[in-house]
């Protein structure tokens, strides 16, 4: 996980009304963050076709707020690794990941990104979690668009429930 550990209770005793508002604030911030994802589609192979399909009609990721790709790692927060990552591509993936700012999430899209798929040989990295930490794995070769949407929704649940560090500590 790329998030630092945040205490559930803010330091110092507070009243229950404060706790109620702080929880509501967390939910509101979580809601706002999870529906404004900016994916960076790190596209390599066949899963790109399914990525194109899931971004356009009729499976539209725009309904989930995750449609607008930002092709600069500085401006995006969801790194979708779509397709096989080979050893030649690995330094590029690592560099793109490091250039992204916190908070960031990684989706391993497809069997090849998850575990290398059936390319277990000298050329392919057997799963990108050997190089970068991954938050959600999407199985399938290539995954059906519904699977991708399911993964985005699971990721959104996680984002919605997580705490934003700065807002929580000083609120």
């Amino acid at each position: 996980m790329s998030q630092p550990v945040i205490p559930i209770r803010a330091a110092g005793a507070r009243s229950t009304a404060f706790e109620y508002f702080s929880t509501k604030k967390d939910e509101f911030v979580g809601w706002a963050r999870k529906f404004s994802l900016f994916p960076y589609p790190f596209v390599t192979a066949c899963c790109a076709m399914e990525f194109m399909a899931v971004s356009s009609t009729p499976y539209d990721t725009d309904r989930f707020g995750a449609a607008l790709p930002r092709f600069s790692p500085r401006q995006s927060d969801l790194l979708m690794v779509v397709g096989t990552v080979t050893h030649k591509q690995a330094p590029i993936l690592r560099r793109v990941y490091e250039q992204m700012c916190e908070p960031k999430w990684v989706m391993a899209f497809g069997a090849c990104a998850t575990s290398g798929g059936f390319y277990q040989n000298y050329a392919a990295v057997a799963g990108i979690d050997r190089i970068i930490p991954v938050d959600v794995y999407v199985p399938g070769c290539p995954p059906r668009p519904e699977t991708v949407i399911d993964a985005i929704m699971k990721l959104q649940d996680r984002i919605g429930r997580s705490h934003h560090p700065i807002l929580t500590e000083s609120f």
Partner: protein
Amino acid sequence: MDTRASAPLPNPIRPAFERGERDDSVVVSIGPSHPATHGTIQVIAALDGEKVERVDVHCGYLHRGFEKECEDHTWHNLMPYIDRLNYCSGLINDFAYCEAVEKLMSIEITPRCRYLRTLLSEYSRIADHLTCIAASLMELGAMTAFLYLVMIRDYVYEHLADLTGARLTYTYGRIGGLARDLPDGWLKRLGEILDQYEEFVGRIHGLIDRNRIFIDRTRDVGVISTAEAINWGFTGPILRSTGTPRDLRRDAPYLAYAELDFEVPVGIKGDNYDRYYVRMREMDESVYMIRQLMDMLPAGPICVDDRRCTLPPKNLVYTEIESLINHFKLIMDGPDVPPGEVYSAQEAPNGELGFYIVSTGGGSPYKLHVRSPSFVHMGGVHRLLEGYQLADIIPTFGSVNMIGGECDR
């Protein structure tokens, strides 16, 4: 999680040049993770302002060890690797490979299989050209065209999923035939999709063909002559856009193409606009061919009745010992292909897709080499890029249709 950059990351390539020809040239690396390069490819360009002086193309970022992997699998088991070569038109890869192995085994496929393979090849060709044109137009800014074309492509994918079980990587070809026959109502839905295709593509023609911006961006950009194209190994729509009607479906007919009535569209200048238009016309010709094939499809078995490669029917496998052993041997050891070598090529949407297979007998290939059109085109694409503007690299690359799985294998 430690996000500090520890050691500097190694550069996996060695560029051909470090600086440009002039003192104030800028060397820019486009890719390998770039939205508009259709996959992982790196173009190192030396720029004089906006003009591209010199270009060094680096592919190989998707090299997945296809040939080495295939040497370890049986002739049937390696079919999924074959699909993932040109993943936009997976069926054509399957059928080209199956044809090569069938030549080695001297198998003649059944008439129904022949016509059905032709129909599905043309269907895949439509899907590939739709993807290429959709992506190229999107990179030029025409998002509407992209959405229309991907909508039709999605119908095609769902329809093929009804037949083969998968939307994209079908693994539908078998040596000696196909995996299964058409389900009921498939041809009727095919007719509906073709009608919808014509309506949508009519809209694209209306939006794009005489669009001033599109013409300005693609006419006289990426021009190549026929002689140069042949010297650099271009085949397929790129060669046809230069004006020469070289098409394997016409020149060396395979499957059922000899019996079909179709034209081979050619361009005039060999620029981006011609490549776009050749692909649009080829899709129309494919639709025409599919309509002819829908009427010509004969009844009969899908797989040739040859125990060397065709799996016996399941009810026999469960009741007769010979069929059980036959099935077992075919799955575990693979079909026994006699020693020899063969080069067999088909007209893929990108050009000549050839399989060079060397067999020493037994159930696994000794060597399985793919002559991939995209790889050869990458060797020659610098002729299309040098001398034009930086912003022209994107539409030119889109019109060349480099598919990473095929280029890097």
